[in-house]
């Protein structure tokens, strides 16, 4: 695993500084649909320049590089303890290089560890799989949008929408409410990862995992695919706009999964991600740790500039 740490530093650096093509495409679409000359339109053009500048200078797209969250798949027999150590070393090194902000704060003393390492940071989820390579996916989701995550327990009463019951109609209302309550505070236009069902803790995890889907994919479950389309259409009609300035685009993606629930519980968990939707992944050779493939990227397609 000679190259493992170096590969992970590259993953962190690229995730923090270079938005993936699906997010770029969604933001391009957002720019195209916003009314020219509005404050939202101006905000979107600054955002576009910022995306370009971050890639050019290899600087963090947003200063809030979030709670680094890794999702790792390993072949049976690979030493996960070694991978965990390499992830921590790579996180500390990327922080030293200014690709990550020191974001790990002791909740009791308020002290910032300075290197992004500390109790339960970074977050790492391991899963085994029956493939030969290691897969590491990373999401850097800032605190502003993390604070706008929301969990509903159905049935409930919602501002402006009334009663939300224990059915897909109730779920739909919750998701629309989630977009509305975020306003511009989660850096709209945002993307949602949603979990219908499960319990409070796992529901939030599954909701966040939906953010590992690409924005342009299709949900394999027909009723969820329909709901995703409906939410995209309706949420973009309420007029939050970029940064909450009022405008045509409030949402760039909505990805929904469903998990079984207890008879007594019906949760809808929503993870709100900002437009600076930093998510990438790599496939690694299981013996050397070298990168064999980038996920979410198309090597045949050059990165296009965002600014017009």
């Amino acid at each position, binding site marked *: 695993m000679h190259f493992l740490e170096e590969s992970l530093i590259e993953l962190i650096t690229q995730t923090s500084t270079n938005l993936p093509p699906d997010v770029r495409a969604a933001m391009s679409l957002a720019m195209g649909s916003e009314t020219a000359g509005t404050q939202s339109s101006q905000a979107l053009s600054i955002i576009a320049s910022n995306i370009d*500048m971050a890639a050019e200078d290899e600087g963090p797209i947003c200063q809030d590089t979030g709670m680094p969250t890794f999702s790792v798949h390993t072949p049976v027999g690979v030493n996960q303890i070694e991978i965990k150590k390499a992830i921590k070393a790579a996180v500390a090194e990327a922080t030293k290089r200014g690709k990550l902000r*020191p974001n790990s704060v002791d909740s009791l003393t308020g002290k910032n560890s300075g290197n992004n390492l500390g109790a339960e940071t970074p977050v790492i989820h391991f899963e085994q799989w029956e493939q030969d390579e290691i897969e590491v996916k990373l999401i850097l989701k800032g605190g502003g949008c993390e604070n706008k995550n929301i969990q509903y327990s159905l049935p409930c009463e919602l501002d402006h929408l009334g009663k939300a019951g224990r059915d897909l109609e109730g779920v739909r209302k919750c998701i629309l409410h989630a977009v509305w309550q975020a306003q511009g505070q989660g850096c709209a236009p945002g993307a949602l990862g949603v979990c219908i069902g499960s319990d409070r803790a796992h529901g939030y995890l599954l909701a966040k995992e939906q953010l590992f889907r690409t924005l342009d994919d299709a949900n394999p479950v027909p009723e969820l695919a329909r709901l995703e389309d409906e939410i995209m259409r309706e949420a973009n009609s309420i*007029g939050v706009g970029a940064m909450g300035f009022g405008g045509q685009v409030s949402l760039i993606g909505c990805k929904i999964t469903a998990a079984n629930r207890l008879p007594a519980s019906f949760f809808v968990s929503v993870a709100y991600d900002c437009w600076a939707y930093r998510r990438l992944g790599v496939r690694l050779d299981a013996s050397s740790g070298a990168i064999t493939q980038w996920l979410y990227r198309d090597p045949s397609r050059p990165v296009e500039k965002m600014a017009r």
Partner: protein
Amino acid sequence: MKVGDVVLITGECYTGRDAVHAHLVKHPLPEGVDMRGAVLYHCGPVMLKNGEVWAVKAAGPTTSSREEPYQADIIKNFGVRAVIGKGGMGKKTLAALKEHGAVYLNAIGGAAQYYARSIDKVLGVNLLEFGIPEAMWKLQVHDFIAIVTMDSHGNSLHADVEKDTGARLAELQKV
């Protein structure tokens, strides 16, 4: 200045976010800091130290609503005239802006590289014991772009948008 105006700021500003606000409602300003007429920027930057010099690596705005419990007192006690952040603030701050002739400026959230290029120099730092993102940085900026979204005449774009979007949300209620 009124809601909707786009402004370009050139001069000095101080950063301050959660820890600084909580600190300043209980303690005096750090020695040498004068906020009379100052611009306060809700920002937790990425900074690297090269020798003795701090370099700004990323510096967009952070969500301002968390400072709502403190902001009115900070404006009143220290004479701050402009607050830069994102996402807007609430009624208490809006009243303080009116009373003390100050404005709230919304910068573009996430545009950390764009804004880093507007910062010419780190002039100093206080309260670094709070950590790099939470410290009080003194910055020299040029042409720092932001939009007036809360003014000293009692207007708030955020309150207007929340109301309008709420009305449109209600139209989507099917049952």
